[in-house]
């Protein structure tokens, strides 16, 4: 991991959708008042850009390489379909079928084919958009409507991380591949939740996933004065710090509706976000130290990454 404080990567995730990831991601990027990369990896519904007056906007098409089989060269050996983890190739009656919508574009089948019967064709899945807003460098993925394959686009967005300034990643909701892809390799994950039955249920799932990833985490409770579903009790039990509580505010909601950040709606949140970020830096540094100790005790074989 990079030195904390210099180029830390914080992922904002939630489990449940609509809890306030965008509010927190954009608010934090604004509040830091320093050069920062804000990556919107919620590629099915990127919306951070709606709260930023972006300049110098440019976009690049994104596609993934999918296999095309030359049936004249194919001997139906089945190596390609046997290799594919995602069942994007199937061998039926001496013929290979390709399922583009299942293909992750890894290129493995092309390499493994002993007859060189497979060539690759680019299949567009979306685009990457770049722009800046003050000290915020914003990059987001925009997946084509109806496109099921989000992870390759998310990975491409994350390749824009320079390591030279702090990174804030707005992750997709849920706990499936897109969320894991967005959060992976972050130094810290901030989980935004609400104190409702669905908020708690999905938080529990997100915590389980992040636990498996050995990811240090903290919680933000949004609309914290609404609902009583035991989010705080759960966090206490799991020893996860609650780093910020945002009570319901009509002002924040009204400003959000016209594309203004929480820190413009209620300026006291600037300080609160900065304080929260300082705590995250401390916790990420502690987590790194622990990992170093663990790896040293294990014979200095390096961290888990």
């Amino acid at each position, binding site marked *: 991991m990079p030195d904390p404080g210099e180029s830390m990567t914080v992922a904002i995730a939630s489990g449940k959708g609509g809890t306030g990831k965008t509010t927190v991601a954009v608010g934090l990027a604004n509040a830091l008042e320093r050069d920062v990369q804000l990556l919107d990896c919620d590629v099915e519904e990127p919306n951070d850009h709606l709260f930023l007056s972006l300049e110098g906007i440019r976009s690049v098409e994104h596609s993934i390489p999918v296999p095309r089989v030359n049936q004249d060269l194919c001997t139906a050996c089945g190596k390609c*379909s046997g290799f594919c983890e*995602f*069942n*994007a190739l*199937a*061998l*039926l*009656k001496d*013929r290979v*079928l390709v*399922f583009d*919508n*299942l293909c992750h574009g890894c290129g493995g089948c092309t390499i493994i084919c002993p007859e060189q019967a497979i060539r690759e064709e680019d299949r567009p899945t979306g685009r990457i958009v770049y722009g800046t807003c003050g000290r915020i460098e914003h990059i987001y993925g925009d997946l084509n409507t109806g496109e*099921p394959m989000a992870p390759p686009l998310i990975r491409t967005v994350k390749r824009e991380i320079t390591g030279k300034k702090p990174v804030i990643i707005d992750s997709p909701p849920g706990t*499936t591949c897109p969320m894991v892809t967005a959060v992976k390799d972050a130094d810290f994950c901030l989980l935004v939740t609400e104190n409702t039955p669905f908020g708690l249920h999905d938080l529990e799932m997100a915590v389980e996933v992040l636990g498996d990833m050995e990811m240090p985490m903290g919680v933000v409770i949004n609309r914290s004065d609404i609902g009583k579903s035991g989010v705080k009790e759960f966090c206490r039990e799991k020893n996860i710090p609650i780093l910020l509580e945002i009570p319901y505010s009509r002002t924040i909601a009204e400003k959000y509706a016209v594309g203004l950040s929480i820190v413009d709606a209620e300026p006291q949140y600037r300080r609160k976000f900065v304080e929260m970020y300082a705590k995250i830096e401390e916790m990420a540094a502690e987590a790194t130290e622990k990992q170093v100790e663990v790896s040293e005790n294990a014979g200095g074989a390096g961290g888990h990454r």
Partner: protein
Amino acid sequence: MIICITAQGKEKSSRVDPRFGRCAYFCFYNTDTDEYSFEKNAFAGGVGGVGVQTGEMMARKEVKVVLTGQVGPNAYRTLEAGGIEVYPNADGTIEEAVGAFLGGQYSKTSGPTGPARHA
């Protein structure tokens, strides 16, 4: 001829499983010998493309007819390429479904009956 029925259990009295790729068991019925055999669906918990895997397996076993609830587009394309006919909306017990099929009560589909279901 071998008929494959997607099943919720491993008895002739078990109900038809409406899911194709993620059904609990496969029942293979041989119309020539009137024999039933059952197999647990090892693909049921797979991440994606289980309809394709299931269709591939059925083609290897030389299944000619599938009785199930619904089939998605990936599964249908695989079965079609394997020369397997699909009879959707089967229900009741395995035995009842086989009886209904042999009695001509089910009709074959010429396309997928629903969208692909992801894990």
